[in-house]
């Protein structure tokens, strides 16, 4: 049976007041809601404050390199599609260092739930601009302010017809839990971009800043791509949260019929087939 206690409670290395503290229990609660037990779940993360999250619960974990969690997760999911694979990492990890993998994951529609702790900053390395940092923000690395346009992950994902695209706010953990639950339930790639205040390095996008702006659109049909595209462009005084787009493209693993017979490691070499292969070299 899956219980919240089963996922354990651990001391964290996050700052007091950090938005990460609310994402952690939301993830656990979503797993319980999905009736998943710790050993059925694999968390993959990169490097950053967000990426530490999987160390703070009980599950299988692969905490890899900065920016490279999606490929690791993709490999693991293909090797064993029975695993529920969740990637948890920061905005820098996923949209910066790992930008190319983000595009590829969307294109593959690999059945992974990607939870991005989007604090719009590089937290662990002490406050440089991330791809989502608002233009003009001054940091020690950008003393004249950020010159690049911020990356809009929701818009890019919707444009590319990603399987499941959602935004949530760490300050609304109930809604966050529900979105993660649905993301895990979705068969295909699920992007959940979670707005997360960083109390140490992002003094612009604070809890209050998000709180004031985030709203759940009253009537929004996530199957409607054009509507989703409109929502995806909203960012400023009002920021829509919730499941913004969804479709039912087949997940990547569905293309490999032999995967239905079980995880890759469970089958030894079929020597008869291999002999046939060898014979092709005569």
């Amino acid at each position, binding site marked *: 049976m899956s219980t919240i206690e089963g996922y354990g409670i651990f001391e964290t290395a996050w700052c007091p007041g950090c938005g990460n503290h609310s994402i952690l229990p939301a993830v656990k609660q979503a797993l319980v809601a999905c009736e998943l037990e710790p050993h059925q779940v694999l968390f993959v993360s990169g490097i950053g404050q967000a990426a530490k999250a999987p160390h703070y619960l009980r599950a299988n974990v692969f905490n890899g390199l900065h920016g490279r969690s999606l490929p690791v997760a993709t490999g693991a999911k293909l*090797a064993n599609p029975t695993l529920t694979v969740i990637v948890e990492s920061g905005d820098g990890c996923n949209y910066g260092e790992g930008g190319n993998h983000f595009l590829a994951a969307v294109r593959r529609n690999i059945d992974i739930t990607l939870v991005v702790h989007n604090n719009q900053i590089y937290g662990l390395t002490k406050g440089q601009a991330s791809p989502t940092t608002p233009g003009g923000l001054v940091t020690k690395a950008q003393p004249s302010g950020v010159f690049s346009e911020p990356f809009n992950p929701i818009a890019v994902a919707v444009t590319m017809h990603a399987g499941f695209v959602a935004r949530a706010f760490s300050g609304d953990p109930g809604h966050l839990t529900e979105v993660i639950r649905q993301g895990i339930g979705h068969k295909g790639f699920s992007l959940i971009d979670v707005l997360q205040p960083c109390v140490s390095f992002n003094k612009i996008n604070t809890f209050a800043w998000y709180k004031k702006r985030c709203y759940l659109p009253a009537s929004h049909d996530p199957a409607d791509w054009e509507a989703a595209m409109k929502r995806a462009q909203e960012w400023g005084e009002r920021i829509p949260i919730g499941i913004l787009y969804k479709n039912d493209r087949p997940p990547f693993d569905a293309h490999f019929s*032999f995967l239905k017979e079980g995880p890759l490691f469970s089958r030894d*070499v079929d020597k008869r087939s291999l002999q046939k292969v060898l014979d092709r070299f005569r």
Partner: protein
Amino acid sequence: MGKDILNIVIGGPAGEGLVTVGALLARALVRSGYAIVVTQSYHSRIRGGHNTFAIRTSTKDTIFAPQEPIDLLMPFDEHTIVLHAKDVVRGGVILADEACAVASDTVVKIPFKALAADGFFNIAALGIMASVIGLEKAVAVATLHDLFDAKHHDVAAENKAVLSRAYEWAQENVSAETIRLNAPEHAYSRLMMHGNEAIALGALSAGVKFCSFYPMTPATSIMLALAAQANDMGIIVEQAEDEIAAINMAVGASFAGAPSMVATSGGGFALMVEGVSLAAMTETPLVIVVAQRPGPATGLPTRTEQGDLELVLHAGHGEFPRAIYAPGTPEECFYLTRRAFESAQQFQGPMFVLTDQFLADSYRAVLPFDLEKLPSFIPVLPSVDPGADYRRYLLTENGISPRLVPGVSRHLVVADSDEHTDDGHLTEDLCVRKQMVEKRLGKGEGMKESTIPPEFIGDENPDLLFVSWGSTKGAVRETVAALQQHGASCASLHFSQVWPLNEDQCLKILTNAGEVVCVEGNATGQFARLLRRETGFAIKKRIARYDGLPITPASIMEQLPGSS
């Protein structure tokens, strides 16, 4: 009296079926019982340029390397004649189109236009060659049949007709006893494969289940060979968005239990360096094939070199053990790839197969592998239950910890790229750090104990000892044989595993030799200095090649001390 050894070179622009014909002729030779050594030389372009497909073939199994002098030149254009006529031996033959302007007594004019319609020129060439060297027509037709009938029904019949016509024409019109092959010594039933195909087959037999790659010459054909069999073998071969993704995917798949492999060349491998370190830190089994080509940077993308040994040996930040296998033949490609999977599973980390363009593309006749006798290396659950308190990185005598696969039992498997405690969780405890460094490096001891000893061939305590590694094996072996025939006291010490080095396996042999010469396909002598680093033995004389072509017996002889 015919010949026991022939060197056949087919040359011309890319895109005119030269490689197809070369491979067909090579296959016909193998099926007829001959040995072959194929050398492919091509430009980095799809059409045009100047390429060669050279088949050295023999009635006996005594050829191991390419050679320069040509017995039979099959030019697909006049430029080929201009370039290679000088290499054609006395008694050799150039099978030129009758329109060809070059006049020479080695040129035999062929009415290709009359024999074959446009687009079938290459099949006519096959027919002529098969005929003049004395292959049976039925064998040539059968290879053609096997290649075309399944895929290209439409042209299959026409192909066979052209082949037959050309073969018959040559029977009647060409008499070239000097390039007719004697009957082969044995009526072997052998397979034909190049180094890269052998790597793919070795991996399949070892139980590879997940392969990821980004295309890069000369490694791509490994993955194409695997992809062709993927559905039948139930394995995944995924083209990644870049090399970084490729290695990280393979690490992920391996973590989840699938024996995994990546293959690339120098520039792509450069991008995998961080991932190598990840595999080492998380102790994830992984086989990495690096097929060398000349660098730096893009260099000569379709040529050969042995220039990345030091890179592969030191790739990855931080310190950790690894093994590097360097095959010298397709058979070794097969068995050493298997060995790499075995080491990866046993020692839980990244293991390397280091090959190069020459070997990658070099077709040979290979005795069939006895699959029944070959174990695979699919992870199985440890026979002993690790108990409730499973610790992925348990400290042990030999550094090897109990490896479980996530999702298979209730035991949680936790891996971290940060320094970690024995349960896999990140730590900043500096005492644990020290233990973990020692644990990881401790695995190197076991690897060193199982290092494959270098192969010594030749005279005991020789006057002249060649040291070599990887794909130069055959060239050195033939050189030694030739020198011995001329009465020299001579031997070779060939390394098929270049790391870890075990001085007990080589130092005595080195010090007991008169002159020691290291033969390497690079300019700086990477293996020679590695040997000095590890054994203290300094090799003073080096034979180096770095113009993009493989080391051959002739190129060794040229640089030999005392040769003019």
